[in-house]
Protein backbone atom coordinates (compact mmCIF):
# COMPACT_ATOMS: atom_id res chain seq x y z
CA UNK A 1 0.00 0.00 0.00
CA UNK A 2 1.44 3.34 -1.07
CA UNK A 3 -0.22 6.65 -0.11
CA UNK A 4 1.28 9.99 -1.01
CA UNK A 5 0.05 13.53 -0.36
CA UNK A 6 2.28 16.02 -2.09
CA UNK A 7 2.44 19.46 -3.75
CA UNK A 8 4.59 18.23 -6.62
CA UNK A 9 3.27 16.87 -9.91
CA UNK A 10 3.47 13.13 -10.39
CA UNK A 11 4.19 11.18 -13.55
CA UNK A 12 0.97 9.27 -14.20
CA UNK A 13 2.50 7.05 -16.90
CA UNK A 14 5.55 6.15 -14.81
CA UNK A 15 3.46 5.56 -11.68
CA UNK A 16 1.03 3.35 -13.61
CA UNK A 17 3.89 1.34 -15.12
CA UNK A 18 5.60 0.86 -11.77
CA UNK A 19 2.35 -0.15 -10.08
CA UNK A 20 1.63 -2.69 -12.82
CA UNK A 21 5.00 -4.39 -12.34
CA UNK A 22 3.46 -5.96 -9.25
CA UNK A 23 4.28 -9.52 -8.34
CA UNK A 24 3.13 -11.34 -11.47
CA UNK A 25 0.10 -12.76 -9.67
CA UNK A 26 -2.42 -10.00 -10.01
CA UNK A 27 -3.80 -10.19 -13.52
CA UNK A 28 -5.98 -7.08 -13.25
CA UNK A 29 -4.98 -3.46 -12.66
CA UNK A 30 -7.40 -0.51 -12.63
CA UNK A 31 -6.30 3.11 -12.42
CA UNK A 32 -8.23 6.34 -12.08
CA UNK A 33 -6.64 9.69 -12.94
CA UNK A 34 -8.21 13.03 -12.07
CA UNK A 35 -7.10 16.05 -14.08
CA UNK A 36 -7.77 19.78 -13.75
CA UNK A 37 -10.39 20.64 -16.37
CA UNK A 38 -9.69 23.76 -18.38
CA UNK A 39 -13.37 24.60 -18.76
CA UNK A 40 -14.94 28.00 -18.09
CA UNK A 41 -11.70 29.92 -18.52
CA UNK A 42 -10.17 28.40 -15.40
CA UNK A 43 -6.69 29.82 -14.91
CA UNK A 44 -5.62 27.80 -11.88
CA UNK A 45 -6.84 25.66 -9.01
CA UNK A 46 -5.66 25.70 -5.42
CA UNK A 47 -6.12 22.65 -3.25
CA UNK A 48 -6.02 23.01 0.51
CA UNK A 49 -5.82 20.00 2.80
CA UNK A 50 -5.57 19.12 6.48
CA UNK A 51 -2.06 17.76 7.07
CA UNK A 52 -2.18 14.77 9.36
CA UNK A 53 -5.86 14.06 8.97
CA UNK A 54 -5.47 13.65 5.21
CA UNK A 55 -2.95 10.83 5.54
CA UNK A 56 -5.03 9.13 8.23
CA UNK A 57 -8.22 9.36 6.18
CA UNK A 58 -6.57 7.99 3.03
CA UNK A 59 -4.94 5.12 4.94
CA UNK A 60 -8.31 4.26 6.51
CA UNK A 61 -10.05 4.28 3.12
CA UNK A 62 -7.33 2.13 1.54
CA UNK A 63 -7.50 -0.23 4.52
CA UNK A 64 -11.28 -0.55 4.16
CA UNK A 65 -10.89 -1.34 0.46
CA UNK A 66 -8.25 -3.99 1.18
CA UNK A 67 -10.53 -5.59 3.76
CA UNK A 68 -13.46 -5.75 1.33
CA UNK A 69 -11.71 -6.93 -1.82
CA UNK A 70 -8.78 -9.32 -2.43
CA UNK A 71 -6.29 -6.64 -3.48
CA UNK A 72 -2.60 -7.32 -3.91
CA UNK A 73 -1.78 -3.61 -3.97
CA UNK A 74 -3.28 -0.13 -3.64
CA UNK A 75 -1.83 3.24 -4.64
CA UNK A 76 -3.20 6.70 -3.84
CA UNK A 77 -1.47 9.92 -4.83
CA UNK A 78 -3.17 13.28 -4.18
CA UNK A 79 -1.68 16.71 -4.74
CA UNK A 80 -2.29 19.98 -2.91
CA UNK A 81 -1.22 23.55 -3.63
CA UNK A 82 -1.47 25.35 -6.97
CA UNK A 83 -2.43 23.42 -10.11
CA UNK A 84 -2.89 24.49 -13.74
CA UNK A 85 -5.48 23.28 -16.28
CA UNK A 86 -4.50 19.85 -17.58
CA UNK A 87 -2.44 19.05 -14.47
CA UNK A 88 -2.90 15.69 -12.78
CA UNK A 89 -4.71 16.19 -9.45
CA UNK A 90 -4.70 12.67 -8.11
CA UNK A 91 -4.67 9.01 -9.02
CA UNK A 92 -5.67 5.72 -7.48
CA UNK A 93 -4.64 2.25 -8.63
CA UNK A 94 -5.78 -1.20 -7.54
CA UNK A 95 -4.39 -4.64 -8.38
CA UNK A 96 -6.22 -7.92 -7.94
CA UNK A 97 -6.56 -11.38 -9.43
CA UNK A 98 -10.11 -10.45 -10.42
CA UNK A 99 -11.09 -7.61 -12.68
CA UNK A 100 -14.36 -6.98 -10.87
CA UNK A 101 -12.56 -6.60 -7.54
CA UNK A 102 -10.03 -4.19 -9.05
CA UNK A 103 -12.82 -2.08 -10.60
CA UNK A 104 -15.04 -2.02 -7.53
CA UNK A 105 -12.18 -1.21 -5.16
CA UNK A 106 -11.04 1.68 -7.37
CA UNK A 107 -14.57 3.12 -7.44
CA UNK A 108 -14.89 2.66 -3.69
CA UNK A 109 -11.59 4.48 -3.12
CA UNK A 110 -12.75 7.37 -5.30
CA UNK A 111 -16.19 7.63 -3.70
CA UNK A 112 -14.78 7.70 -0.19
CA UNK A 113 -11.84 9.91 -1.05
CA UNK A 114 -14.25 12.50 -2.52
CA UNK A 115 -16.37 12.75 0.61
CA UNK A 116 -14.09 11.68 3.45
CA UNK A 117 -10.58 12.92 2.71
CA UNK A 118 -10.03 16.55 3.81
CA UNK A 119 -9.22 18.31 0.56
CA UNK A 120 -10.87 21.50 -0.66
CA UNK A 121 -10.60 22.90 -4.17
CA UNK A 122 -10.68 26.60 -5.04
CA UNK A 123 -11.01 27.61 -8.68
CA UNK A 124 -9.61 30.83 -10.13
CA UNK A 125 -11.25 32.07 -13.32
CA UNK A 126 -12.27 35.18 -15.21
CA UNK A 127 -14.93 35.99 -12.59
CA UNK A 128 -12.63 35.60 -9.62
CA UNK A 129 -12.11 32.79 -7.15
CA UNK A 130 -14.65 30.29 -5.91
CA UNK A 131 -14.55 27.29 -3.58
CA UNK A 132 -15.85 24.20 -5.34
CA UNK A 133 -19.13 23.06 -3.78
CA UNK A 134 -19.52 19.43 -2.77
CA UNK A 135 -22.15 17.59 -4.82
CA UNK A 136 -25.06 15.80 -3.19
CA UNK A 137 -24.18 13.00 -5.62
CA UNK A 138 -20.85 12.55 -3.93
CA UNK A 139 -22.45 11.85 -0.59
CA UNK A 140 -25.15 9.57 -2.01
CA UNK A 141 -22.48 7.64 -3.95
CA UNK A 142 -21.34 6.20 -0.60
CA UNK A 143 -24.69 4.52 -0.03
CA UNK A 144 -23.99 1.84 -2.61
CA UNK A 145 -21.10 0.33 -0.64
Amino acid at each position, binding site marked *: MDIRVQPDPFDYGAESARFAQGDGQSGAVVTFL*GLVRGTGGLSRME*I*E*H*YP*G*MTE*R*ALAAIAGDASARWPLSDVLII*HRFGTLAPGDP*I*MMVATASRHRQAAFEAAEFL*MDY*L*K*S*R*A*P*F*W*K*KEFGPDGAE*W*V*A*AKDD*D*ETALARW
Partner: protein
Amino acid sequence: MIEVLYFAWVRERIGIPRERIETGAATVADLVEELKAREDRYAAAFADLRALRVALDQELADFSAPLAGAREVAFFPPMTGG
Protein backbone atom coordinates in the same frame (compact mmCIF):
# COMPACT_ATOMS: atom_id res chain seq x y z
CA MET B 1 -6.76 24.53 26.02
CA ILE B 2 -7.74 23.16 22.67
CA GLU B 3 -6.26 23.71 19.22
CA VAL B 4 -8.93 24.95 16.79
CA LEU B 5 -8.31 24.71 13.04
CA TYR B 6 -10.22 26.27 10.15
CA PHE B 7 -10.06 25.27 6.50
CA ALA B 8 -11.21 26.59 3.13
CA TRP B 9 -13.86 29.32 3.31
CA VAL B 10 -14.23 28.85 7.08
CA ARG B 11 -10.56 29.84 7.39
CA GLU B 12 -11.09 32.78 5.05
CA ARG B 13 -14.12 34.12 6.94
CA ILE B 14 -12.48 33.83 10.34
CA GLY B 15 -9.22 35.16 8.94
CA ILE B 16 -6.80 32.76 10.63
CA PRO B 17 -5.93 29.09 10.01
CA ARG B 18 -5.72 28.07 13.68
CA GLU B 19 -5.78 29.31 17.24
CA ARG B 20 -5.50 27.94 20.76
CA ILE B 21 -8.64 28.47 22.80
CA GLU B 22 -9.30 28.22 26.52
CA THR B 23 -12.81 26.85 26.78
CA GLY B 24 -15.11 25.08 29.17
CA ALA B 25 -17.47 24.02 26.39
CA ALA B 26 -18.83 20.51 26.88
CA THR B 27 -19.52 19.75 23.22
CA VAL B 28 -18.46 20.93 19.79
CA ALA B 29 -21.80 22.73 19.47
CA ASP B 30 -21.15 24.57 22.74
CA LEU B 31 -17.74 25.65 21.45
CA VAL B 32 -19.36 26.94 18.26
CA GLU B 33 -21.81 29.04 20.35
CA GLU B 34 -18.89 30.52 22.32
CA LEU B 35 -17.07 31.41 19.12
CA LYS B 36 -20.16 32.94 17.47
CA ALA B 37 -20.65 35.17 20.49
CA ARG B 38 -17.11 36.50 20.18
CA GLU B 39 -17.12 38.39 16.91
CA ASP B 40 -19.09 38.82 13.69
CA ARG B 41 -16.49 36.92 11.61
CA TYR B 42 -17.13 33.81 13.71
CA ALA B 43 -20.88 34.34 13.54
CA ALA B 44 -20.56 34.58 9.74
CA ALA B 45 -18.42 31.45 9.48
CA PHE B 46 -20.74 29.38 11.68
CA ALA B 47 -24.05 30.81 10.42
CA ASP B 48 -25.19 27.52 8.84
CA LEU B 49 -23.89 24.40 10.56
CA ARG B 50 -25.43 22.18 7.86
CA ALA B 51 -22.79 23.61 5.51
CA LEU B 52 -19.99 22.62 7.89
CA ARG B 53 -18.17 19.51 8.95
CA VAL B 54 -16.15 18.97 12.11
CA ALA B 55 -13.23 16.72 13.00
CA LEU B 56 -12.08 15.88 16.53
CA ASP B 57 -8.43 14.84 16.73
CA GLN B 58 -8.48 14.32 12.96
CA GLU B 59 -11.53 12.04 12.84
CA LEU B 60 -14.89 13.20 11.49
CA ALA B 61 -17.32 13.86 14.34
CA ASP B 62 -20.76 15.26 15.06
CA PHE B 63 -21.46 18.70 16.51
CA SER B 64 -22.96 16.91 19.51
CA ALA B 65 -19.65 15.16 20.30
CA PRO B 66 -18.10 15.90 23.74
CA LEU B 67 -14.89 17.95 23.72
CA ALA B 68 -13.43 16.33 26.84
CA GLY B 69 -9.97 14.94 26.12
CA ALA B 70 -9.79 16.30 22.57
CA ARG B 71 -6.57 18.08 21.67
CA GLU B 72 -7.65 19.38 18.28
CA VAL B 73 -10.94 20.39 16.69
CA ALA B 74 -11.26 21.41 13.04
CA PHE B 75 -14.08 23.13 11.16
CA PHE B 76 -14.43 23.02 7.38
CA PRO B 77 -16.92 22.74 4.52
CA PRO B 78 -17.75 19.36 2.93
CA MET B 79 -14.69 17.91 1.24
CA THR B 80 -14.10 18.32 -2.48
CA GLY B 81 -11.01 16.24 -3.22
CA GLY B 82 -10.54 13.65 -5.92
